[in-house]
């Protein structure tokens, strides 16, 4: 096989591997903190990519209406909680975050023409719309049943996934779309061409991973999330509420998803349902890490990316089969080597 092809495939594999690694981290995070197997993780990728491309097409993305709707529902739930617990003082803040901010965002988007905005602003707006949706979904779908079994939480995940796919179709239609590349630079290395966009994806993923590392190792909120993952009762006794930890982890998961979507949107055509398969590959990486170890999950995800890109070249009809078959020996190996841990009550 010739070097140029290897370089090309390697480049491709590492690019998608970097994205899968980000998603694997999000899945491990969400599972460790809340015990939720977050099937809809990939939908945030699609929503990120498609929201950005809507903005670039000069349209008002449906994501905005979803944000406003969910915000109103969260405000309703939180305010009725506050009324029952005589915490009237919280009401203005609840209204501001859940209704005020989305409406301000809508006002801004209606006032300007989004297509003409500079690209970084478009990306910021996309994240501002998609990221809060993560926390809102936690509040509405998972928080009321936070103590339920892993299976019950998984069932809810499937329901949320289906709902988001449906909304995606409604908002963005069945056509796929791409966004404008962030850069059209390319580098010549010997005979091979290194695309600037590819470098950008890898670098941006690394930056995000390093930022997350600092968040978890150096900030008190990051430590609080890790503490919740380690010992729920201990964390509650420190005043780290399960609700706070849940909302925070879902917000991070949504951020990671939307950010990944924005990164790959210029190099891959994204459809309303593309997120699922992308998320699933991140999931294979996360499974390799046993839904517990971040570094192994990330390495597993890179492996998935490489495997996918090489198999798409040598056996393109079987590329998905090969990737998902990887999970079988991994699961076998894990079940043989790991002690069985009883699920916490």
């Amino acid at each position, binding site marked *: 096989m010739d070097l140029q092809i290897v370089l090309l495939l390697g480049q491709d594999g590492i690019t998608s591997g970097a994205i899968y690694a980000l998603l694997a981290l999000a899945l491990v995070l969400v599972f460790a903190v809340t015990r939720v197997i977050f099937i809809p993780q990939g939908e945030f990728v699609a929503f990120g990519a498609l929201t950005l491309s809507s903005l670039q097409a000069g349209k008002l993305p449906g994501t905005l209406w979803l944000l406003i709707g969910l915000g109103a529902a969260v405000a309703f739930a939180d305010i009725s909680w506050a009324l029952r*617990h005589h915490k009237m003082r919280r009401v203005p803040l609840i209204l501001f975050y859940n209704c005020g901010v989305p409406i301000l965002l809508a006002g801004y988007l209606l006032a300007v023409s989004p297509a003409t905005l500079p690209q970084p602003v478009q990306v910021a707006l996309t994240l501002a719309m998609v990221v809060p949706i993560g926390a809102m979904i936690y509040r509405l779908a998972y928080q009321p049943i936070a103590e339920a079994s892993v299976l019950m939480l998984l069932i809810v995940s499937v329901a949320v996934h289906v709902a988001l796919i449906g909304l995606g179709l409604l908002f963005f239609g069945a056509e796929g779309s791409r966004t404008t590349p962030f850069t059209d630079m390319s580098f010549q290395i010997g005979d091979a061409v290194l695309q600037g966009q590819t470098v950008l994806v890898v670098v941006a993923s690394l930056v995000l991973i390093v930022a997350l590392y600092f968040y978890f190792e150096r900030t*008190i909120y990051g*430590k*609080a999330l*890790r*503490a919740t993952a*380690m*010992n729920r*009762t*201990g*964390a*509650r*006794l*420190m*005043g*780290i*509420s399960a609700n706070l930890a849940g909302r925070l982890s879902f917000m991070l998961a949504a951020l990671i998803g939307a950010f990944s979507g924005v990164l790959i949107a210029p190099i891959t055509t994204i459809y309303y349902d593309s997120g699922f398969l992308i998320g699933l590959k991140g999931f294979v990486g996360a499974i390799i890490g046993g839904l517990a170890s971040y570094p192994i999950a990330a390495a597993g995800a890179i492996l998935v990316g490489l495997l996918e890109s090489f198999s798409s070249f040598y056996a393109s009809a079987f590329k998905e089969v090969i990737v998902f078959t990887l999970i079988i020996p991994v699961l076998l190996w894990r079940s043989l080597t790991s002690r069985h841990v009883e699920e916490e009550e």
Partner: protein
Amino acid sequence: MATELGENPVAPVVLDVRDLSVSYGKVEALRGINLSIRKGEIVTVIGPNGAGKTTLLSALMGLLPAKGDISYLGEHQGTDRQVEHLVRHGMTLVPERRELFGEMSVEDNLLLGAFDRYRAGHRDHLETMDQVYDIFPRLLERREQMAGTLSGGERQMLAMGRALVAKPKLLMLDEPSLGLAPLIIKEIFRTIAALTKTGVAILLVEQNARAALHVSDRAYVLETGEISLEGPSKELARDPRVIESYLGLGHRH
């Protein structure tokens, strides 16, 4: 009985519990518990294994649903008491199982003790952590070590230190002397006695009845879910029923 009055009858009541009962499913673990504790007071609850001592502390902390009337810092509490709400108002529990964060350093465990104060806008955690290191110099030596690898005694110190970083108004300790060497037990009880100078109220659950009665102002004896005896600790320590069941033959006064 004149037991409603503690050492200092004018100090404000921190916690007042009337007719508390707690059930695990159909089994009632606590019945008709009345208990109160004032600022600066050490109150101890002694009793045999399975009497419901840990259940009592868990219920007070909001970890278990309870029936009855609880008021804390003069505020009447509804039926669904929230742990987070109580933590915010200075109630802290060192649970029987300690619940440390095993894969985090000693320092991070202490830091998280200050999480809620940090969130409420206080930025004095470094100072309070230093105070804890003064009380337990061993923790300072071990500050980079993972909590999960600490010795039993060091874990107890860390659990108590983590609670102190929260600057509690009511500190509840579930068997702080569990599994410790006599010398360290002395140290721990000396620390507990010294803490009341800061005005904190301490609710102490102990197997080590002798030490607990010695350090506390008032005591309750809990047996099969009910309070069977209560009174000033000095009086209880002389009560023949307490001597027979909890102080044993070794007690000669």
